[in-house]
């Protein structure tokens, strides 16, 4: 099933921000906004929910810490508690200071890498992925707002014209 969307192009981020606010106020549904760089405050203007990736990272960090503790305890204390240079290997706590550098690095490693992978998965990014760019200019100097059409094509077009768009076009989307 195909449906129609309107692509409104802007050449200034301030105009775009105003347009987004007006569009939301007029209760038109913004499907997506394409910008060449991060526009500060755009997510708030669009009413997007805050990201939870920091929470995910915290949990990944806890996982990494647990993994490091399990690993070191298993190898250094349980499996083969050798006397290496007089370090006490009777319990985990006794030799803990020597393990802290590894515990720290594992925590950071897990938190960072798993968070990045989460980000890729959630934003559907991978090598050889086909770019979803509706207009090549949006990677250079234009901003594009995509608004859904619900049998109000002419009204919506004129509304978007009035928000300062430099170009408004109706696009058939598959």
């Amino acid at each position, binding site marked *: 099933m195909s449906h129609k969307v309107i692509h409104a192009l802007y050449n200034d981020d301030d105009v775009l921000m105003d347009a987004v606010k007006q569009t939301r106020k007029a209760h038109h549904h913004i499907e997506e906004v394409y910008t060449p760089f991060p526009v500060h405050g755009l997510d708030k203007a669009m009413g997007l929910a805050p990201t939870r990736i920091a929470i995910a990272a915290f949990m990944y960090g806890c996982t990494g810490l647990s993994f490091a503790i399990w690993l070191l305890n298993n190898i250094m204390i349980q499996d083969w508690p050798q*006397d290496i240079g*007089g370090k006490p290997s*009777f319990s985990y706590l*006794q030799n803990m*200071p*020597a393990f*802290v550098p590894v515990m720290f690095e594992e925590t950071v490693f897990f938190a960072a890498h798993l968070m990045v992978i989460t980000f890729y998965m959630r934003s559907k990014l991978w090598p050889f992925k086909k770019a979803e760019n509706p207009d090549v200019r949006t990677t250079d100097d234009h901003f594009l707002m995509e608004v859904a059409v619900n049998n109000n094509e002419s009204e919506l077009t004129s509304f978007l014209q009035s928000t300062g768009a430099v170009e408004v076009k109706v696009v058939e989307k598959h």
Partner: protein
Amino acid sequence: MYTFSSKLKNLAIILMVLGLLGIGYGFFSAPKNTEDVEKILAADAHGEHHAAPAAHGEAKHEATPAAHTEAEHAVEAVKDSAAVAAHGLDSVAAHVEEAHVAEVAKPEAHEAPATEAHAEVAHVEAAHGEAHADEHKEHVEHVFHQLQNKPWSALYVGALFIFLISLGVLAFYAIQWAAQAGWSPGLFRVMEAITAYIVPGGIILFVLLVLSGVHINHLFVWMDPEVVAKDHLIQGKSGYLNVPFFLIRAAIFLGGWMLYRTYTRKNSLALDETNDQTYYKKNFKASAGFLAFFLVSESMMSWDWIMSVDPHWFSTLFGWYVFASFFVSGITTIALITLYLKSKGYLEHINNSHFHDLAKFMFGISVFWTYLWFSQFMLMWYANIPEEVTYYKFRIEHYNLPFFGMVVMNFVFPILILINTDFKRVPWIITMAGIIILSGHYLDFHNMIFPATVGDQWFIGAAELGSLAFFAGLFIFVVFTALSKAPLLAKGNPLIEESKHFHY
């Protein structure tokens, strides 16, 4: 303009009066002679057999290292490995016998010279029996000195900690100027008020150092000519550690800090009145220069005022460690006082984002402190060289709860609470975290001074809390008096508009 509320003024005065009572009680209850000590020891049945003999060799090592013989050294080494082997990191009762048993029970825990040390221990034990009477007398003498040091140490730690808070704020203030930070000028008047304590606090601290220098107390063992005469290690350091040079250095450090504080405050007020931006440039340059001076003077200050209570021990990152401790306390104090003023409706241009920034600093510098704490600890623990590891051994054995408790208060608690962005904007959470951080860093300074001056005779009681209360009261009095002397918004600062509209 801020007016010093009478409630707060009364609180400050009450704190000072109660604090003075506590300090006075501390001095009054300190033993006057060795007979008093005998009574205390007799009353404390534990004292004779457990903690005291264990502390004996240890504390001797710390305080009167002249009496440091080979044999004692061996005992210490054995106790060291035994304490670790017997899982008793905290077992104060690592008496020689016990150590001996643990030694036999777990030979694999020991390195090559096990048998040698074994022989040494037997030897020492024999000598122990013979010299018992002598040792008892010496021991009483030793405890007497420790108990006499206690009220002085309490006073010194309180004075030092509160003074260093305002010094930490001064460093933070200088960084804000030198970095031309856009968010913080709205808080400059609060910081300037806190640093007003530098002058009275610094004078009190200097008086305490002079009192030590003229042998009113025995906080600094290297100031005692009798000890130095028998101690080759201290003799070797006497080119640096001698009373006149020590006091001259202290005067230079304090003078430099006070000079910078007075100069920038004057310029900052002049900037408001005249709007002449040359004052801004003057402060910018003064701050950059001060930071260079501060870096050197702070490091030396930490060797002089803190590390030299343990003249046999040294650590290269000690200056940074002390800095991180009082820097985070200073930032926390800025946050607490700003929150208080905001809640009273005095800081209209300060918003949640400013608190958020301060809380981020509290969080970040807490982690930085932990990094330095752990780096210092772990390097010494790992290498386990007897002359430097005794510092930590003594603390882990006799200061177990404060030693590890402060790590929880200064690291685990802040990292779990202040990691959340939303929490960093909630006043009561910042306040709670701030109080825990400040208490934790008081403990930090307590753990730096007390083990060397009073050994295992420490306690956080009337004298310690009294000293803290007195200086906190004085601090509140001085800071809020200074706050009421100038408008709370530094309106002449060219960055003030940015600061007013700062949001994160």
